[in-house]
């Protein structure tokens, strides 16, 4: 990625057309809509959800969803083994699926970026030392270690969020370091250093603008990973604990009814899949949109390109 000079006019002009470009790209639009839906569901869960997600009704247990025989409009997506409304549980589940990545990615992003800035800016021995630790952490058996920690410490919202952020902060550190190193080589940064601008000023004025777009894209991408990890840990019983609701947790509960009530597995899992797919699509679009070279390539490829070369 080429460094951009801060606040150039063309950059500002580009951000004005931002919204239009999302609307014109169907995959990005899908991603944004999914994310908007998720946020809305999380924020207004008590208003949108037809019923209390924890209200048991043993008389109405294991009711099938509307598309299956015996489904009713009262419980659109059926009920679980305790007669709780599946649709309401999925809507409330969005709260966890959104706040966990928000918290974990923020923690990991802030910490990782700080470490990466330090390594990239100080260079030399500091850099070598930090990057050695980062490299070592990359060869840790991630999920297994997370399971061990959660088993010992005890799973809760915060332990889960912290453990998940411990698994990903290195990604931010590594990317920040790389971006700082390449930005420092840019002429305007060298010039600023020569005229004696303070390190803080150089960091804020000249280097930071080059970090925002790629780090934001990375944050979006990592949220998708965090959602998947949270779901897997909750499914394994070491993530979100009842009475809180989580899509992964609901799949785990539905597992016992694989013969009689498969919707208890399929529907909450589908919610995870759609959320992650939406975020991945958005991340893919962001990566292209933030890189002019890449987006020109996309255009050229879409024009008419049976192969890289004719002949």
């Amino acid at each position: 990625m080429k460094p951009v000079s801060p606040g150039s006019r063309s950059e500002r002009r580009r951000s004005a057309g931002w919204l239009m470009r999302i609307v014109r790209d169907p995959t990005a639009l899908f991603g944004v809509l999914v994310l908007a839906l998720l946020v809305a569901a999380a924020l207004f869960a008590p208003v949108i959800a037809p019923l209390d997600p924890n209200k048991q009704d043993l008389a109405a247990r294991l009711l099938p969803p509307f598309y299956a025989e015996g489904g009713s409009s009262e419980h659109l997506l059926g009920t679980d083994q305790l007669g709780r409304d599946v649709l309401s549980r999925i809507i409330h589940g969005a709260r966890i699926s959104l706040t966990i990545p928000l918290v974990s990615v923020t923690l990991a992003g802030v910490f990782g970026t700080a470490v990466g800035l330090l390594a990239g800016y100080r260079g030399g021995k500091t850099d070598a030392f930090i990057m050695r630790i980062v490299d070592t952490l990359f060869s840790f058996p991630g999920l297994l270690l997370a399971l061990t920690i959660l088993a010992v410490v005890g799973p809760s919202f915060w332990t889960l969020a912290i453990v998940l952020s411990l698994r990903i902060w290195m990604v931010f550190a590594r990317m920040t370091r790389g971006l700082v190193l390449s930005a420092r080589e840019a002429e305007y940064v060298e010039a600023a250093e020569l005229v004696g601008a303070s390190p803080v000023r150089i960091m804020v004025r000249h280097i930071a603008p080059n970090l925002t777009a790629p780090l934001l894209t990375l944050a979006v991408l990592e949220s998708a990973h965090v959602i998947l990890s949270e779901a897997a840990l909750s499914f394994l019983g070491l993530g979100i604990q009842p009475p809180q609701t989580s899509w992964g947790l609901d799949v785990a509960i539905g597992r016992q009814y694989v013969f009689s009530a498969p919707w208890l597995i399929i529907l909450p899992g589908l919610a995870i899949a759609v959320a992650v797919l939406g975020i991945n699509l958005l991340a893919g679009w962001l990566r292209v949109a933030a890189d002019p070279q890449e987006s020109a390539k996309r255009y050229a490829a879409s024009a008419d390109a049976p192969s890289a070369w004719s002949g």
Partner: protein
Amino acid sequence: MNRSDHLLEIRNLEVVFPTREGTVQAVRGVSFTVDAGESLAVVGESGSGKSTLARAALGLIELPGRIAGGEILWRGRSLLDKRVARRIRGREISMVSQDPMASMSPILTIGTQMTEVMTRHLDIGRREAFTRAGDLLEKVGIPDPGRRLGQYPFEFSGGMQQRVVIATALSCDPMMLIADEPTTALDVTTQAQILELISSLQKDLGLALLLITHDLGVVAGACDLLKVLYAGEIVESGTADQLFHRPHHPYTAALLGSTPRLDVKADRLMAIEGHPPDLRHVGGGCTFTPRCPHATTRCASASPVLQPSGVGRAYACWNPLNGLQGRDPSHGGGRA
């Protein structure tokens, strides 16, 4: 069937590149021919369409570019037919490109990359191809070819690697060699050696040579004929001698003024002012007008066509230099 008595004949070639900001007209109606044993140079600035032209002469257009009009004939057969072009590339026409270090795969040995062309086009086995590759390396001046064949491109210097590329280009006894800026990526001493090598091989083997360059200095000893390309069009053509001593087009003169020469004493080199035109929006009039010291109102409104003047010479200019009006300056050394 298109008949042509020439080795290579390009007729009215037009190549366009669609981009998001509009369609670039990279080559705009270029025609020329190359005969057996002839050496022709096409000279122009970067962006003049000269490299596109070189690739097109092999039947290759880099996507998203496409040929919008015209013909490319090789011994009467159209190179726009991909099956024809595939049989001819490397076999009858071969190519040497700009950066020798980027020209071959860094992870395959020289031997592999030299022989893969031979085993495809010639009826020989791998062992025979390796022997032949060794002989070729020796011919282009690379000592210890047996060991060299097992090495990778990064183990060669730029000049040596360009010799390897040339040897590979000659491996199937082609009739024509296209050299696209063959010396640009090399240092000055090596440049001269490589040029000399190409020149002597061309004469010894009776090859036709199409040399593409931005540097008139490169053309001097190597080519008999010269075409000057500006903004996708040929603006002047003739023998190298004629154009060097009596350029008619102001652009040719400007190019000469910006080229360091040993035979002419110049106080300083003249840079050509201004930029080449935007090939997405080509209007009427001569494309050189904004940069031309001799431009008149006519130049801005009407486009001059390439018109012959004397034997084998042509130019496209309303106000040609060297007192063309009134008397014909073309003399001697004309094309037979």
